[in-house]
């Protein structure tokens, strides 16, 4: 059962403040990811503070980097159930976890950050991993 919308509203706002576009239905996910060209980051948001409480600020830091994905979108696990289920269909063999972060290039997942790679780590450490991935997969050398 989804959490009270009032409880998760600040977590949604934290994402939109950093420029992420919320996808709240399967149709919105298909419109954003299907036939996607270029680079995209999909953030699977979560209420669990154990990991998501660090993942959101980590992403905000990473998005200040010189190389960033062209599009940043987010779905909310446990909230927007259809949107999350549809987004996960695009993740191929990567198993569901939340929070998690998928980097896509032309619709294909090129890098995936699971919950276990976020838990117990500082936002700075997670952000450093993300910016390294941005450079590797979205940098000028691969454009």
């Amino acid at each position, binding site marked *: 059962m989804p959490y009270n919308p009032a409880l998760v509203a600040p977590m949604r706002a934290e994402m939109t403040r950093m420029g992420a576009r919320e996808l709240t239905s399967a149709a919105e996910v298909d419109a954003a990811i299907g036939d996607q060209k270029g680079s995209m980051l999909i953030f699977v948001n979560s209420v669990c503070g154990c990991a998501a409480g660090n993942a959101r600020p980590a992403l905000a830091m990473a998005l200040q980097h010189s190389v960033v994905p062209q599009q940043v979108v987010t779905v909310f696990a446990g909230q927007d159930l259809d949107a999350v289920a549809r987004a996960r269909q695009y993740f191929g063999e990567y198993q569901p976890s939340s929070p998690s972060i998928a980097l896509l290039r032309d619709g294909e997942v090129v890098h995936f950050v699971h919950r*276990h790679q976020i838990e*117990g780590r500082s936002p700075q450490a997670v952000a450093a991993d993300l910016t390294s991935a941005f450079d590797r997969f979205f940098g000028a050398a691969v454009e």
Partner: protein
Amino acid sequence: MSGHVFHPGHAELHGITVVVETDGPVTYVGRYDSEDEQGVHMLDVGVHDGSAGGSSKDEYVRKSAKFGIKTSHKHLVVPADQVARITRLAEMAP
């Protein structure tokens, strides 16, 4: 909401994805929830049984780290007397 934890007062590993190794052929990978007289309570758990053939335990853990956990149990209790070692999955990943 950054840094907010919804589960204050829990064990250090609460909410952390761990590998629970046993003295036998079975290994569990999932989120550590708590521990009591019954054993270790885990959530969203995948199980590897080395006696069933197939991939090795190391390969199973490596794949779980890279692709995530293929869960077969929403909640599972590993009996305390079977637990040999608990390690964060992130520490076992290559």
